[in-house]
């Protein structure tokens, strides 16, 4: 191996490298691929890259539609009984065939101590082997969206993991490194050729992959590039073919370079503003003895004071998609029907006067300054827009670690008016409904991130029904109804969904998915 590298280096040194013929796709991200163990970190980029090596029970297409993955079909036998049939002839990279035993093993492993993806598989789900390619999942409660997240329930090889002492994901406090975090053995279209954490990861195509090969690559090299200026320079100089993210101020430069373009499709994260509607007196306001946000007219005035088009054009340089819904249209098609209230500063002033605040009042807007795209600038714009209706808003922007420690559950929701962004990991409406919107309830584990303390019993009732409804049409109707009530209550001010920020070389064709996954099988290079 080492001699081979030496020879290769020598060949390259004398210009004899065959690099001109092999198609190598270089891609660079601002962060690292942290660990090759697919269960140790619930972070989008890491498992998006690992999704080229490992595969889940299902997979998703370019528009996030659910497609058969390692399971070729599945059915609901009864509301609490699912049956999955595995694809035949699938082999792991080491040659072992995929069987039900591997799925059962993975279902145990992903829920074991040390796994950060425990929530992918419900704790009470019982996996039962029917035969080598069929298994049942028995649930305590009906769960209509059980396989939705299973694109990233990566299936590992039982024999390989056991032989290499990696039966469980390495726990955070372990004192020895684990084999599975430095090596990988999946079923996916690419195999790991070499992995040097934080430096370089090299992938080779898996010739025995079961799926339809759509890429034309011979090799893929991943490098993290931390500095934004260097990352953009590497793209423009042609050394890398794909970067993420391109800083907003460099979008035009990349587009005008002639060698690369920006792909800025719509992302799934919804950015919104929220108000404290539960306290009896606002903590950060000059209104004493009562909470003006309990009055719907005040919330509506705030909503209509926000000129969303100005934010889109001036702050986001048109790289944002205004929305009136608390869920991305990719995850709930009915989101398009939830329209924004119109921008109307005069009407907002009148609403405030009707509510008893003709001269406005003061409020502090809490905002992160390094979490979402241009988060602080958006808040500054909101502050000046509110000034037009005599609301004296002052901005308190902080770095993300301090910000979230203050406004979330751990900080006892210490805010009167705030900004937050949310994209459901489950890719389904139930997640925002039960996390952001349901009345806070510790025992039922509901509303943990309901920072404003919004509470409507009707919505809670619907949320409970949605959770157990297995009929898609009925379920969607209930989801639409719940979001409608939330919007009528003006529980939040949804702003926009962000745009993605890929920089892609002109030599490369690639499919961009709204959840920011990079699928190497969809890459072709000229």
């Amino acid at each position, binding site marked *: 191996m080492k001699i081979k590298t030496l020879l290769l280096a020598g060949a390259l040194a004398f210009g004899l490298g065959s690099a001109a013929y092999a198609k190598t796709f270089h891609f660079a991200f601002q962060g690292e691929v942290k660990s090759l163990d697919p269960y140790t970190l619930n972070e989008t980029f890491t498992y998006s890259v690992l999704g080229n090596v490992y595969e889940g029970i299902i997979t998703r297409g370019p528009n996030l539609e659910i497609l058969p993955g390692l399971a070729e079909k599945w059915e609901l036998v009864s509301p609490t009984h699912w049956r999955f049939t595995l694809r035949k002839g699938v082999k792991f990279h080491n040659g072992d065939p995929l069987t039900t035993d591997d799925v059962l093993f993975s279902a145990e492993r992903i829920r074991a101590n040390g796994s950060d993806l425990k929530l992918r598989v419900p704790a009470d789900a019982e996996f039962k082997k029917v035969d080598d390619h069929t298994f049942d999942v028995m649930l305590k409660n009906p769960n209509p969206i059980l396989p939705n997240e299973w694109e990233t329930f990566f299936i590992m090889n039982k024999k390989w993991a056991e032989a290499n002492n990696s039966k469980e994901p390495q726990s955070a406090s372990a004192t020895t*490194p684990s084999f599975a975090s430095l090596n990988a053995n999946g079923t996916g279209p690419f195999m790991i050729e070499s992995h040097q954490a*934080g430096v370089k990861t090299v992938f080779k195509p898996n010739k025995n992959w079961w799926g339809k090969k759509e890429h034309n690559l011979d090799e893929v090299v991943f490098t993290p590039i931390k500095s934004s200026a260097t990352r953009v320079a590497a793209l423009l100089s*042609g050394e890398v073919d794909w970067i993420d993210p391109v800083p907003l101020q460099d979008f035009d430069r990349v587009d005008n370079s002639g060698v690369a373009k920006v792909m800025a499709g719509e992302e799934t994260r919804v950015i919104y503003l929220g108000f404290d509607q539960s306290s009896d007196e606002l903590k950060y306001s000059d209104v004493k003895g009562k909470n003006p946000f309990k009055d719907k007219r005040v919330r509506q005035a705030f909503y209509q004071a926000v000129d969303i088009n100005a934010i889109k054009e001036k702050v986001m340089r048109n790289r944002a998609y205004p929305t009136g819904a608390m869920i991305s249209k990719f995850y709930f098609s009915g989101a398009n029907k939830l329209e924004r209230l119109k921008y109307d500063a005069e009407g907002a002033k009148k609403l405030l006067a009707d509510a008893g605040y003709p001269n406005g009042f003061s409020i502090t807007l809490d905002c992160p300054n390094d979490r979402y795209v241009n988060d602080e600038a958006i808040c500054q714009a909101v502050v000046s827009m509110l000034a037009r209706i005599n609301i004296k808003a002052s901005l308190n922007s902080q770095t993300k*670690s301090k910000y979230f420690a203050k406004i979330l559950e751990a900080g006892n929701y210490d805010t009167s008016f705030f900004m937050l962004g949310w994209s459901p990991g489950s890719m389904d409406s139930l997640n925002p409904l039960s996390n952001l919107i349901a009345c806070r309830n510790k025992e039922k584990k509901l509303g943990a991130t309901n920072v404003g303390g919004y509470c409507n019993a009707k919505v809670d009732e619907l949320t409970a029904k949605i959770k157990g409804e297995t009929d898609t049409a009925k379920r969607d109707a209930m989801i639409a109804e719940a979001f409608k009530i939330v919007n009528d209550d003006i529980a939040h001010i949804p702003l926009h969904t962000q745009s993605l920020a890929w920089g892609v070389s002109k030599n490369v064709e690639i499919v961009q998915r709204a959840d920011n996954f990079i699928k190497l099988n969809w890459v072709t290079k000229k």
Partner: protein
Amino acid sequence: MLAFIIRRLLQGLIVMVAVSAIAFTMFQFVGDPVNQIVGAETTTEERAQIRESLGLNDPIVLQFGRFLVKAAKFDFGISYQFREKVSDLIFSRMPATLELAFCAAFFSLLCGIPMGVYTALRRDSWLSKIFQAVSLIGISLPTFFTGIIMIFLFSVTLRWLPSFGRGDVVDFGFWNTGLLSWTGWKAIIMPAITLGLFQMTLVMRLVRSEMLEVMRTDYIKFARARGIPARSINFRHALKNTLIPVITIVGLQLGSIIAFAIITESVFQWPGMGLLFLTAVQNADIPIMAAYLILISFLFVSINLIVDLLYVSVDPRIRITGKAL
């Protein structure tokens, strides 16, 4: 002599313990490492459990003690982000940093000395004035700025040199080097110049002022009077005598080149220890931070020790005071 060395070694040990103690108190402010270990959906109870299992809830003195005991056995634990042994990570990154540092030092000597000699001998020529101006830029421009400017000129516009990385690396197991491949050489040029620019300026100014001084001394005048050719006077007699302080300074600066390569490494995505440290700070990866700081303090302590020992062997007066102390 032996007593002197032992005393200096003990002092060095105290410095290293002090550095790690200061580092440990600072780790309280880098944020919660558990946030970096797990994703957003992890429950509060689970986070608390991980904190407990990592021993982050113990008093800081206890954590520090535990760290010292392990560090004495060269065990720095497992990186929170990469789940690899910290010592393996650091040792695999060390060659990159050392190679860069030595190339930068070499570059600073190779350019700095001739430039210094020239500006001292031909004080009023236009080239001297250009050298002086360049050295002013070298001292006043921040490293990341020169780095980015070079990237845009040589990588994006001219496409001569790579903008990031190390090129093809040859691995010998205990050491890896980019200096055996053509791409490796191309990759190291810009980072080495960026990192060495400040040192080059320093060397040039030092050589210049020393040369000016030496040229005024009597033995140079006598040499001239004897009719020795100018080249021989300038390079054999004058330059030789200016080099002693230069070598001392460069030796001492080597430590800071290695330690402050962090910025250059992050601009060029050079996969060295500095970049590893920077990522560790951002991700609150305490085991890496601790090990890196200890290593750097060890480096400074040992370089100083070597310089001190050299002085002792050169200058007997220090030996005598050393005993008296």
